């Protein structure tokens, strides 16, 4: 499992190809349990690559985040490929981008890393507070082992894994050019318990729940920036004419912002949980996005990012879609 030798060998081989621009993987962060994205262009740099329970970043974001400068006259556009390391959830983001034709299949090389779940930093830092030295981690038979300065500490995986991983149904890459090691078994069957719990409450309770979170939002747009599906060149949030959402920070605009973003992810959110991970004020954004994921799955039998040949949900229809709410 998580054979780093193999990972680095494949990475070396891939970046040495002439038709590859760079490879995106993970490397040890600067301190504590942090992990950084690692962009490599030279084979020697591949030795820094890692894959561990700390690699929670979804690197698919970088496929569309890259700035596309206009090509100077007389020059050919750079058509070299970008190699990308993906976990199961990240691969769904790539597939959904392919479905929406945000990227081209021939412009990416997908290196699949079947994944046994990544940690939630908040949970880990609660267990091991104020760790400043670089920490390594690995999976070990239902446990996650952290290599701290005082020795190795094994923690049951349920205690530190991110919520999205505990209910993960796609631990293996949906599509990959190279699969680094054998697939792992999906053990969970997601029943949307968190969404159901909130749905069961009275409307006033639901509003006060969201009102408290929405009013704490500082509108840093981290959720949008980290989201692999938020790649519109002209985002409604940046637009002034028409102004869809005003820039003032108050409950009215914040609610409109969050609902607009959730709606724009309807039938597209692949539940990688990045928005929730980066939110500086800990808004449970996945609880909002997962509501729509649930409805999409139940009402339209559609799951984003699982089938590269499907059509986007909101760009297709069935004549017999249910319409029991229509007067």
């Amino acid at each position, binding site marked *: 499992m998580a054979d780093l030798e193999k990972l680095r060998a494949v990475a070396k081989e891939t970046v040495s190809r002439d038709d590859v621009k760079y490879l995106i993987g993970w490397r040890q962060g600067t301190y504590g349990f942090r992990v950084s994205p690692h962009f490599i262009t030279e084979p020697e740099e591949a030795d820094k690559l890692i894959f561990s329970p700390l690699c929670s970043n979804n690197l698919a974001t970088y496929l569309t985040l890259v700035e596309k400068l206009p090509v100077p006259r007389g020059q050919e556009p750079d058509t070299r490929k970008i190699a990308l390391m993906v976990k199961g959830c990240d691969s769904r983001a790539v597939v959904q981008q392919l479905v929406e034709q945000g990227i081209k299949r021939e412009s990416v090389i997908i290196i699949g890393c079947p994944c046994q779940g990544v940690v939630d930093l908040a949970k880990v830092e609660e267990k091991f507070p104020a760790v400043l030295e670089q920490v390594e981690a690995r999976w070990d038979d239902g446990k996650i082992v952290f290599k701290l300065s005082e020795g190795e500490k094994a923690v049951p995986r349920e205690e530190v894994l991110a919520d999205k991983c505990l209910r993960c149904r796609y631990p293996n890459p949906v599509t990959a050019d190279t699969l680094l090691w054998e697939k792992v078994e999906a053990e969970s069957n997601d029943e949307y318990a968190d969404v159901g719990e909130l749905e069961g409450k009275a409307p006033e309770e639901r*509003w006060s729940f969201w009102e408290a979170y929405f009013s704490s939002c500082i509108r840093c747009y981290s959720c949008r920036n980290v989201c692999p599906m938020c790649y519109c060149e002209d985002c409604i949030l940046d637009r002034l004419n028409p102004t869809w959402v005003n820039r003032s920070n*108050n409950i*009215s605009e914040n609610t409109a912002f969050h*609902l607009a973003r*959730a*709606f724009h992810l309807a039938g597209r959110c692949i539940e990688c949980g990045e928005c929730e991970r980066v939110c500086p004020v800990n808004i449970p954004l996945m609880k909002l996005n997962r509501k*729509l994921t649930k*409805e999409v799955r139940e009402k339209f039998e559609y799951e984003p990012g699982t089938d590269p040949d499907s059509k986007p949900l909101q760009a297709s229809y069935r004549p017999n879609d249910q319409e029991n709410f229509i*007067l």
Partner: protein
Amino acid sequence: MSEQFEPNLVAFVCNWCTYAGADLAGTSRIQYPPNLSVIRVMCTGRINPLFVLNALQQGADGVLVSGCHPGDCHYMEGNYYARRRFTLMKDLLEYVGVDPKRFHMSWVSASEGAKWKEVVETTVNEAKEVGPFEQFQRNKINW
């Protein structure tokens, strides 16, 4: 307040069916509540679900979206897309605690003046039931 609450409603209607249906209701002298401001668009498929959010922000107590019956769209398939979008928008609004009685969608064809009256009456009565919308209206912000 002794006066009865009169809701402020916005209706986005399609040019080809519901707008003509409402026109028919008018020429047939069918009486229906005047609380609705009609905004004519070319097709329900043109209605961005963010219009609904924006209407609620700007002081509407409820929103109605109405267009051609499935299969009757002037542009063949616009209302099918709209149906998917508003199914999800309605669920989302309900989930964050906005009363489902504030948002309605209906199919009213050009010959259904009487149905338009019923739809408007339902929308207005339900908006009266739930009262003024204050959850995220712009001018109701309490600093």
